[in-house]
């Protein structure tokens, strides 16, 4: 069996329309990607570019009034248009999610043992005792010390890093095939961030899960995933092996993103400015029909506004949506 060949997740032309006060707008416009078992995929991009919406669409948890079109296949099964009861059988079982804010992602009034055991009882039909034993094992695996004693403790009795570990334990409970982590470390400080990321990577390696990691921290993505998607304005503007994307920096937006990072250890240089991307992200309803980055991009030409540029192949699965890739400016 060739594991890498069999795509676990296959997303084709995913579009998400939201109903807002200004009418229906497309927040995600035509995403295509595949994810194999054991593969790790990173999603980076501007705030508001649709990263979280994509993740929620994969979990079937979009807010009321959001419309999904296109196709999402998990192991060949079409998920778009699935009834809620069937979604419930998948969620927490075959696919699981870790959220950004560890405090608000846990129910403050339930002990953590119960919250970790919940998916086990739900999907595996374990008895309370079995689920408890399993929960202890899980919590210990994510590094909660003396887990058995702390099952009855409430979320507020844990530190931020511990809470995030608990949410990870919860997500891993039923051994999902796909783990989606939406900015799992943004709320943590650097030392904790490192620990949590290492934990996730260890678990992915250990269990052969597929991982979709969302972050806007380029360094985090660089260290954690094999392939990367760069999103802007609801579309994937560049995708490919992480190494290739980060070294080639094909799309102007990717370039701008990289340039804007302050460098640790560079030290202060008077008069030095960080290169920035001019302008601000357009509102969803105001997104141009063409390249969403047009307008802010230094290379914009009239043609950019005409239509969404098609992905241009750059070798070994590396593509970018830009009509001026070859041009030097």
């Amino acid at each position, binding site marked *: 069996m060739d594991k890498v060949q069999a795509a676990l997740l296959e997303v084709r032309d995913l579009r998400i329309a939201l109903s807002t006060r200004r009418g229906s707008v497309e927040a995600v416009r035509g995403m295509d990607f595949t994810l194999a078992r054991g593969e790790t995929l990173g999603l980076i991009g501007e705030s508001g570019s649709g990263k979280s919406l994509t993740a929620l669409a994969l979990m079937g948890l979009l807010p009321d009034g959001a419309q999904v079109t296109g196709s999402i296949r998990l192991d060949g099964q079409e998920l778009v248009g699935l009834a809620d009861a069937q979604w419930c059988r998948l969620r927490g079982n075959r696919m699981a999610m870790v959220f950004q804010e560890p405090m608000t992602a846990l129910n403050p009034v339930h002990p953590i043992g119960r919250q970790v055991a919940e998916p086990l009882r739900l999907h595996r039909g374990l008895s309370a005792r079995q689920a408890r034993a399993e929960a202890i094992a899980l919590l210990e695996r994510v590094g909660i010390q003396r887990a058995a004693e702390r099952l009855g403790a409430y979320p507020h009795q844990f530190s931020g890093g511990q809470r995030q570990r608990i949410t990870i334990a919860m997500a891993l409970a039923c051994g999902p095939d796909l783990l989606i982590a939406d900015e799992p470390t943004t709320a943590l400080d650097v030392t904790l961030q490192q620990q949590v990321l290492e934990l996730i990577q260890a678990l992915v390696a250990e269990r052969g899960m597929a991982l979709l990691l969302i972050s806007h921290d380029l360094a985090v993505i660089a260290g954690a995933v094999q392939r990367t998607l760069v999103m802007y304005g609801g579309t994937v503007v560049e995708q490919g092996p992480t190494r290739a994307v980060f070294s080639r920096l094909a799309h102007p937006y990717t370039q701008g993103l990289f340039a804007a990072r302050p460098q640790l250890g*560079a*030290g202060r240089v008077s008069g030095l400015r960080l290169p920035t991307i001019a302008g601000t992200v357009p509102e969803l309803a105001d997104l141009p029909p063409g390249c969403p980055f047009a307008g802010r991009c230094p290379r914009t030409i009239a043609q950019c506004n005409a239509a969404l540029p098609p992905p241009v192949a750059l070798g070994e699965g590396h593509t970018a949506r830009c009509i001026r890739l070859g041009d030097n400016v």
Partner: protein
Amino acid sequence: MSASAPLLQVRDLHHHYPLPRTRLLGPRPMLPVLHGVDFSITTGRSLGVVGESGSGKSTLARIAMALETPASGSVQLLGRDLHRLAPGALRAARRDFQMVFQDPYGSLDPRQTVQRIVTEPLRALGRPTRAEAAARAAEVLAQVGLRPGDAHKYPHEFSGGQRQRIAIARALITRPRLIVADEPVSALDVSVQAQVLNLLAELQEEHGVTYLLISHDLAVVSHLCDEVLVLQGGRVVERGAPRELFAHPQHPYTQSLVAAVPRLVV
């Protein structure tokens, strides 16, 4: 005053917070937060403070801003001990030091227009006429790169980066000598973060503003600051110029901090 004289001088700061009583008649237990923090900043330079969550960074900022009274120690701005000033004098002195907060969403009153927000420190200091206030507002908004028309909008109509600019404009309006910025860019996207950092640098170079910059992002601190303090558990464990400090951390805590920073090795 000569450029090398310290603008802000903090001496042996101690602080603790009371915890809820555990016994009816016993003394309230205390949570120690700062243990003898000492530093000074020269006019026109920036000092960065880094440290893990809960190490007392924000407490330090609030004490430096005279928003909280320390248990002991002194904060001197231009030679005056802020915590010994009479309330009226302190209010007048606030002209010289202003603050920028972490959360660009929470630090602007959602029910006030940008003009009102930005001119708040002016109005707190005296009674500017409407025209004066408007003129000053337009001036600082221009300084931070916002359009004059933005003065009559509400905060929700701006992006995070723009809001942080509004917050900075508010801090600038009294032409302060010192700006204390508590995590001014942590909530921002990389591309927006760069805009704000540039703005801060520009203001310093053009107007000689002094910064006390608090952040947990070492890269941000190293980009903007001339000197860095590393705070752990309320103590300064290490200090120095960012370049040397992060290249050769001495204290084990600093070392672990630097090691934890994810690096982009391409």
